[in-house]
């Protein structure tokens, strides 16, 4: 039994074609049979689901259900779930049980969604291949010898392989868009401040943003509308009204101005460039007007990002000291030994690398040359985008310079960091952006990035939805998944 999106599932539930329990049994069965080979889940949480299944069925039975009542969801394992493990893909938090729910988890619970599992991820959301998880690498269902992208690789794979219709993710420099592209699903990161960061374990506070994976822009818009809210518990939360992001989906995009960064297009390998150009052509077919835009500072984005994000992470991850919770080394001889060994043994290599880089960048004598300069570049990039959006409504761009690559293909960290050259600029500017599937290259999915101006989620979702009305790329699935 397969559903074409949330609306169909909701309709089946509301007409009693299927019960919430039966629906979840289907997904649980798939999770138990497929999750291990893909290694996309860290914990399956039937005890979390049980009560939510009952209460959502009761709502359906009393005709009080909304579209998300009873719909399954998997959360990336950096969103705190009350009384349940929240590992961040790290040995450091392997046994950490959160005493509270993240605001976005709470919002989605209240909307009636049922939490089924926690998804695997790169440790503390640091990585572009999901090879950095303490719980092992996640495999791409399109080719299990290849990576799914990262850091929200588990979430992308869960949706790509049909283990859940919806998954949450987080995106700091591309961690939703890149795995969405590499796994052939739709993924959106809203504007910085749209979704509360309360209860999302921090990597780089000024960049971290929660988002959604689904099989379509429409499903993304439905879930995102309930996930986002102003939250007084997060001081950086945007003080804007909750918005229905699906309201513009069916608008025609005729006359809409779509910006193209030709420098980025030119830098793509030919096969990915062709696929991307064809997708952009489709937007033109829908009546959109293509306009060249320039982002003169964007080429500095990766460098700036790899100063700012590690700097913030070096401070954010200081709390993992082996004292109050989390991994603690055995038989520490003194306080310093407790700190050093707990952190040495509890963190993986990439996390330690970034803590070291960030610590160094913030050190006396280097601060001005690195951190301050990076912040300046960040402001310039944001200005570049503001200027571009004076002339266009949305920017269409590549997501990744390549399709899913093989495990251990990138041993040099810097080459891995280059994976994010097209996703980092919009992250630094705090803009809403998403990835939609636009076809296959050598049997592997390629994504198109849509970037909107600040708080213009509904515009990029509108473009994505219109694109998905005339294409079937988002319905393509890897062989062997989905029955």
């Amino acid at each position, binding site marked *: 039994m397969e559903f074409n999106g949330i609306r169909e599932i909701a309709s089946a539930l509301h007409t009693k074609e299927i019960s919430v329990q039966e629906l979840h049994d289907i997904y649980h069965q798939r999770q138990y049979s497929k999750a291990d080979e893909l290694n996309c889940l860290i914990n399956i949480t039937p005890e979390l689901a049980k009560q939510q299944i009952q209460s959502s069925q009761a709502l359906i039975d009393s005709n009080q259900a909304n579209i998300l009542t009873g719909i399954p969801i998997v959360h990336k394992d950096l969103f*705190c779930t009350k009384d349940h493990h*929240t590992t*961040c893909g790290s040995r450091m*938090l392997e046994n*950490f049980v*959160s*005493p*509270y729910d*993240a605001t976005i988890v709470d919002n989605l619970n209240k909307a009636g969604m049922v939490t089924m599992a926690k998804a695997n991820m790169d440790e503390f959301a640091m990585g572009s291949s999901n090879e950095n998880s303490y719980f092992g690498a996640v495999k791409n269902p399109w080719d299990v010898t290849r990576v799914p992208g990262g850091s929200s690789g588990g979430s992308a794979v869960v949706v790509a392989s049909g283990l859940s219709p919806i998954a949450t993710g987080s995106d700091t420099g591309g961690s939703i868009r890149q795995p969405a592209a590499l796994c052939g699903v739709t993924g959106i990161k809203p504007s910085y401040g749209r979704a509360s*960061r*309360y*209860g*999302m*374990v*921090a990597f*780089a*506070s*000024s960049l971290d943003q929660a988002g959604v994976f689904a099989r379509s822009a429409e499903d993304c818009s439905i879930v995102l509308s309930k996930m986002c809210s102003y939250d*007084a*518990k*997060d*001081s*950086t939360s945007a003080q804007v009204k909750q918005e229905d992001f699906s309201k513009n989906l069916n608008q025609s995009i005729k006359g809409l101005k779509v910006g193209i960064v030709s420098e980025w297009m030119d830098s793509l390998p030919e096969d990915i460039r062709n696929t991307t150009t064809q997708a952009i052509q489709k937007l033109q077919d829908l009546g959109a007007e293509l306009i060249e835009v320039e982002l003169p500072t964007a080429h500095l984005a990766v460098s700036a990002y790899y100063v700012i994000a590690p*700097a*913030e992470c*070096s*401070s954010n*991850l*200081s*709390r*993992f*000291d082996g*004292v*109050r*919770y989390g991994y603690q080394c055995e038989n520490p001889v003194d*306080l310093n030994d407790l*700190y050093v060994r707990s952190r040495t043994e509890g963190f993986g290599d990439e996390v330690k690398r970034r803590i070291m880089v960030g*610590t160094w960048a*913030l*050190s*006396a004598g280097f*601060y001005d040359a690195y*951190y301050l300069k990076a912040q300046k570049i960040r402001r310039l990039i944001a200005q570049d985008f503001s200027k571009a959006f004076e002339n266009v409504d949305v920017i269409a761009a590549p997501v990744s310079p390549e399709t899913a690559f093989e495990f251990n293909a990138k041993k040099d960290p810097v080459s891995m960091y280059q994976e994010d050259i097209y996703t980092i600029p919009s992250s630094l500017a705090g803009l809403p952006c998403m990835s939609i599937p636009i076809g296959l290259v050598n049997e592997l999915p390629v994504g198109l990035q849509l970037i909107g101006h600040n708080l213009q989620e509904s515009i990029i979702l509108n473009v994505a939805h219109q694109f998905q009305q005339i294409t079937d790329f988002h319905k393509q699935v890897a062989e062997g998944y989905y029955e």
Partner: protein
Amino acid sequence: MNNKTSSQINWETVIGLEIHTQLKTKSKLFAATNTAYGASPNTQVSFLEAAIPGTLPVFNEKVLRYAIRFGLAVGAKVIAKESTFDRKNYFYPDSPKGYQITQLNQPIVEHGTLTIQDKNGNDKIIRINRAHIEEDAGKSVHENYANYSGIDLNRCGTPLIEIVSEPDLSSAKEAVAYMKEIHTIVTHLGICDGNLQEGSFRCDANVSVRPKGQKELGTRTELKNINSFRFVEKAINIEIKRQIKLLESGGKITQETRLYDADKNETRPMRSKEEANDYRYFPDPDLLPVVIDQAYIDAQKQYIPEFPAAKINRYTQELKLKVDDAKIIAYDKPLSAFFDATVKQLVKAEPKTAANMLLGEYSALLNSKDALIQDQNITDIQFTGLIEALAEGKISHKIAKIILEKMWASGSSADDIIKQEGLAQVSDSGELESIISEIINNNQSQFIAYKEGDMKMFNFFVGQVMKQTKGRANPAQVKSILEKS
């Protein structure tokens, strides 16, 4: 080469103080956690203070108002329209996040001043460099745990303002005077309870010496966490002595943090330079800049009280109080509130009369009852009634004291007590004359002695009159009648 022998060098001391003032807010700086002192360890700790993953700070706006009030009170040139928070990174178990949230680059208050008296009694202006908002750390508990340390996070996240002076202080005495003046300001503003014992008001002192006339500052040491006015003076003096002795014997001062040991009356290094931390300050990305407009600042002005220095001026100039009395009243916030309320209601009486009664009989009564003036066992209205009755000559000073005690017990007004107890002063000349002539008649020999010039007998007769009238006779009138008799 300096040819002067060491004993010829006149040393000059330079001191700057950093005062940590705990703000008297109900909840912590970034969470709605209770701040009350003295709770069982780790009972006032939220997820934020325990640094549970995913938690975020939310700024307590009351702290902003308190900090601005301090800025206004010290005439700060800058109360920042945009103020930002920075992280100071270091590992220590009493700071579970691994960093302290403080203000490095854009503190809320800058460039204030304060006036103290130097050793010659002249006014000396001390510049305040800045006052910034920051969070307090928890406490390490080293007693009771063999081989371990305990951690109490109750204090963690309590709001502080750190008040940093310029190095304008020239002696330990001046440092104490400055510290006391800051203490007066924050307690009179009501933003700090001022309790040094509980650590609500703590001081670090930066101390250096240099030959008199030298421009450059000497190498300074920082004395940490001195928790009484007395120890500040002692610690600074012992440190000055140590530095001079070291320099005169050809040594060099090491820039370091030193701890004052009150038991041994000595300072000793706390951490050496090798262990010096690089705090890696950077703007806290979890907190937006605090943006304030002028109206917000202006709204805080109504909370700035008249401070003791101004009060002393007013009491001595306008109300004609003695300087010593003015000082006692002015520095005692509840006492001066009571006095000011009384003075406002006075009609015939002089403020001085009220001050005398307040510092004399009423203070004695309060002491004997172990009570506080702010408890208003006697209200300022009752007290004013008493002072007025005294000024009008309705009662004598002696009777006033009796009425004060009766007021305490009954809560009645002075006039009611005078009426009910028949305590009105006898000022009727006819009545007094007849009482006096009766006494003279009964004490003829003494009267003759008085007439012959024995002034002891004059006092005898006054005493007899007072005895007869139970102290209600108007003494001045008694005197004048006796003199004429």
